[in-house]
């Protein structure tokens, strides 16, 4: 069952996972992104890593800190809207923040964004998916799982 908590409250044990040296995300945004990436990438098969294990949210923090100012501003807004109970209620009649949803509810909620009749929500889904997939599949830890061998390089640069 989904935990019902105000969106502004974070659990102490969640906050301990948040790196101290964030340059783009607030601690709460870090947790929202981490949770979204976990669902978007999907659970790892045995012996492989998920988005959390490869530090996908920390990588996204670095990546977004170098993005154009308008992209940075829009991504802040997206994470706020994506998580806030007000919007989860308005969009989907759900009564909890994204962070407090069960894994199944999170999947269902993300799917609602992906297939929404509102273009702006589909754009939001694409923005999240782009950053999550980029952070995960540019990381060499993900390559073995899918059978990517990297680029053939000159001897002195292998």
């Amino acid at each position, binding site marked *: 069952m989904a935990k019902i908590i105000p969106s502004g409250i974070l659990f102490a044990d969640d906050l301990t996972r948040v790196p101290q040296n964030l340059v783009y995300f607030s601690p709460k945004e870090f947790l929202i992104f981490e949770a979204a990436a976990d*669902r*978007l*990438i*999907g*659970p*790892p*098969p045995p012996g492989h890593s998920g988005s959390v294990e490869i530090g996908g949210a920390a990588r996204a923090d670095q*990546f977004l800190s*170098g*993005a*154009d*100012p*308008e*992209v940075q501003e829009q991504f802040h807004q997206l994470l706020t809207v994506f998580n806030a109970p007000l919007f989860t209620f308005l969009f989907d009649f759900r009564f909890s923040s994204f962070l407090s949803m069960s894994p199944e509810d999170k*999947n269902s909620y*993300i*799917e609602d964004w*992906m*297939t929404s009749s509102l*273009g*702006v929500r*589909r*754009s939001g*889904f*694409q*923005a999240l*998916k*782009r950053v999550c*997939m*980029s952070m*995960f*599949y*540019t*990381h*060499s830890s*993900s*390559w073995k*799982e*899918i*059978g*990517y*061998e*990297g*680029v*053939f*390089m*000159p001897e002195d*640069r292998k």
Partner: protein
Amino acid sequence: MIIRGDDITGPVRETADVCIIGSGCGGGASAKVLAEAGKKVILLEEGGYYTSKDFGSTEETAYQKLYQQRAGQATDNLGITVLQGRCVGGSSTINWTTTLRTPEFVLEAWKRDHGVEGLSSMELDPFFARVEKYLNVHQEPDENHNPNNRIILDGAKKLGYHAVAVGRNTKNCVKAGACGLGCPFDAKKTVAITYIPDAVKAGATLLANCRANAISVSGATKHVGGVVYDQATGKPKSDFVIEAPVVIVSASAINSPVLLLKSGLANSSGEVGKHLTFHLTSAVLGLYEKIIYGAGGIPQSAMCDEFLNKNGDGGGFWLEAVPIYPALAGLALPGFGSWHREMMHLYPHIGATIVLVKEIDSSGAVSVNDYGRASISYTLGSKDLKYLKQALATAARVQFAAGAKRVMTLHATATEIAEPSQIEAKLAGADWGTNELALFSAHPLGTCRMGANSKTSVVDTHCQTHDIKGLFVIDGSVMPTSLGVNPQLTILAIAEKSAEWIATESVKFRE
């Protein structure tokens, strides 16, 4: 001389005969021609200067160092990803080497509909031939096509469609599969390792990490002002002003109009930023029992051109292969979560065929956003949407003919097709709204279009702006229409031709 932002310690104040903004195909070729004609050339590049030893050739390093907005550039609604280079050499550093002449029907339309003189096939042929020789453009022998390109050649052949090897600008290619990530072997004859070194050898100066923010005009003199960035940190560190009687804007179809609009120049027609075309691109994925491994070998060596201008309306589409790098695959595959991850496990068995639509009734534009950067909008026209659907259906047929067991489009909600007889019905039932089908562009063109009429175009046949003598735009933005082919050869040939004209007429620009 090539100077990185790291090496610049204070404000830069320089004069030149010609200042060129952007070091891609348009700027690089112009710099070589003008420097070799004895002109003092200063070439500005907002991106960094990297050699093959710096590339790293992973998606992570390439996107960060070599791509515009780290490969995240898109239309404002994120509906279309717009891939461009942002480094010395521009998009030639990260393109997939396909080098093709402008189709004759396109050049005829430019003359007929836009009054463009001097760019007929006959007049451009010597320039095409010169560029092709300089860049060692050639077709690969049959044994060099990787399995992903064989899908096009074999599938199209079975269906009776015309498909051939494309021209490629490479020499001693080792088939590393890295074209889109920066060639670590310098086998790809990019602008950065051909035109730029030759321009520098002839006396040109290239300032990397220098972003032009505005051009001003006083009399015959133009002033180009901007910011110097540190290559390592990306942080601003100084500024520059370059004075020259001739300024060539070669910042691409996305950023050239932004610079002109911010500068308030060359827009008496109101046409700057309008008529953006994308050569709109999507893909069809085929799942095979055998290994395809689309990340290996030569990424793009074949095409099917059966359906370009087939109806004589100037529109249509064609098919090419695409390198399947992991993050690109992750972005393109439909859906998310467990289903998406299971699909990624089939990665070595995926073949990808891209469809590229030559637009005839879509409407795109570039304007300036509140941050002084490009705002990109695009509305797909009904005729082009029809061609896009036909293109996806054709690519699906080609995939099945080549042996695919299942086929899917890049719709957000997976559209899986189990056999050829399902293609039409599946596509008819799919959604086609914004962000319901993944769309891309690597060929944005046309935002400062060329034409004889100064009320409906921005530059003349020599790429000089109608409004200001000595101010030129030489890059993909001058194309009056979508090309229907990969644009680098067209841009290079027009750049060489225009730069030759500037060199012979240069005295006039000081008056």
